[in-house]
């Protein structure tokens, strides 16, 4: 009888060790799967080009107070991009392509050597703040004052 009890005790100990190993593996697996899922979601919901495009833009005004923006080299920008113009606290959103000439927007891009002219927005002695937000990547590519 005494021997029987001892044997039962041994069996219980052995099965509990096996269960802990399975649990350990399951926990490790679930942790890894969870981590990979978070990593996957965070990486693939993330735009791959979060760095702003390297572009040189020069902003100036003409004699008749038209705002002129020159593309002076670097990456091309989509004509769907937004120009946010703020004059005396009033913010206006403009589509970049609307201010390019027809030849420049043939390739749907604002490229080096091309300039855009925004006429009739700025009055004499007024200062405007300009932001250009790249339409494809939703990133600010230019910030300046004219």
């Amino acid at each position, binding site marked *: 009888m005494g021997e029987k009890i001892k044997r039962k005790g041994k069996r219980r100990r052995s099965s509990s060790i096996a269960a802990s*190993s399975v649990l350990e593996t399951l926990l490790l697996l679930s942790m890894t799967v969870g981590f990979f899922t978070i990593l996957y979601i965070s990486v693939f919901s993330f735009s791959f080009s979060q760095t702003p495009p390297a572009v040189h833009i020069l902003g100036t005004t003409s004699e008749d107070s038209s705002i002129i923006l020159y593309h002076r080299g*670097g990456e091309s920008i989509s004509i769907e991009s937004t120009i946010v113009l703020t004059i005396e606290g009033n913010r206006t959103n403009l589509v970049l392509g609307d201010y390019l000439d027809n030849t420049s927007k043939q390739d749907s891009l604002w490229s*080096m050597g091309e300039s855009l002219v925004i006429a009739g927005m700025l009055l004499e002695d007024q200062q405007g703040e300009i932001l250009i937000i790249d339409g494809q990547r939703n990133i600010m590519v230019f910030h300046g004052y004219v």
Partner: protein
Amino acid sequence: MKKDKKRKLMTNNSGVVGIVATVLLIGLIITFVGIVQTVHVPNWLKQKEAHHMNDVQTQFTQLKYTIDVLSLLEEHVSIANYITLGTEELPVLNTGRTYDTLEILSNNFQITFSNATDSFSLTTSGILYSSKNSHFVDQIICLEAGALILSQTPSSILLGQPLFSITNYTNVSLWLFDIAGLEGKSFVSGYGTYILSNEFISRTTHRITDVTSINISTDYPEAWGDFFNSSAFVNSGLTYSMTLGNQTLHIEYSISLGNFDIEVIDIHSQLAIWRY
């Protein structure tokens, strides 16, 4: 005997868990490195190459300034300028090194001034830097007849205009540089900072009166168009028509220019490729 079997089974279980954990850990590391290599490294390299392009532009503005000053001083001394070719690789990852080229061109630019009866033609050479970027857009920077040009296929812009003056509206003085290279020391390709030695040789003045048209043959007609469209020429009150070709620029003045003085500056330039 039974005890031995049980021990073996227990040992095997522990072994499997260890292997699974190791495989998962390796998978995790590979995924992390993969994400860095495919997502972040190209962005870092693009920024690095864009930054290098800015550096080279600055170095070329210094080169133009040096040659402008040399021609004004007319001193027969050699002044060194530095041009950096290529970008360094990323640390640890050991990737992203690029190699550029620097060349002293031969007869790459031609300009012809014509009046009703006569014409004066000049062919000059210049200095050309060409990038071989792997992520950022490729650029060419060229010092051509005294104009500093940035080219990005298919367009070009003027970074620095040649020396010129306009007096009494129609008297134009234009300084054009002819940069001659030394055979065997006029081309370099690779990575690193290279020395370009420039020396003033001579200055010759050519005068042509009543100029009615200017013809230019160049790889960068848009940039030269920018120069002739610049405020000084526009404000001179001269009316003209401009025709832009693939490799040509033609300017026709409705009223002839009074006197056109063309100052031709001969510069000797060589890449300092020393034997160590």
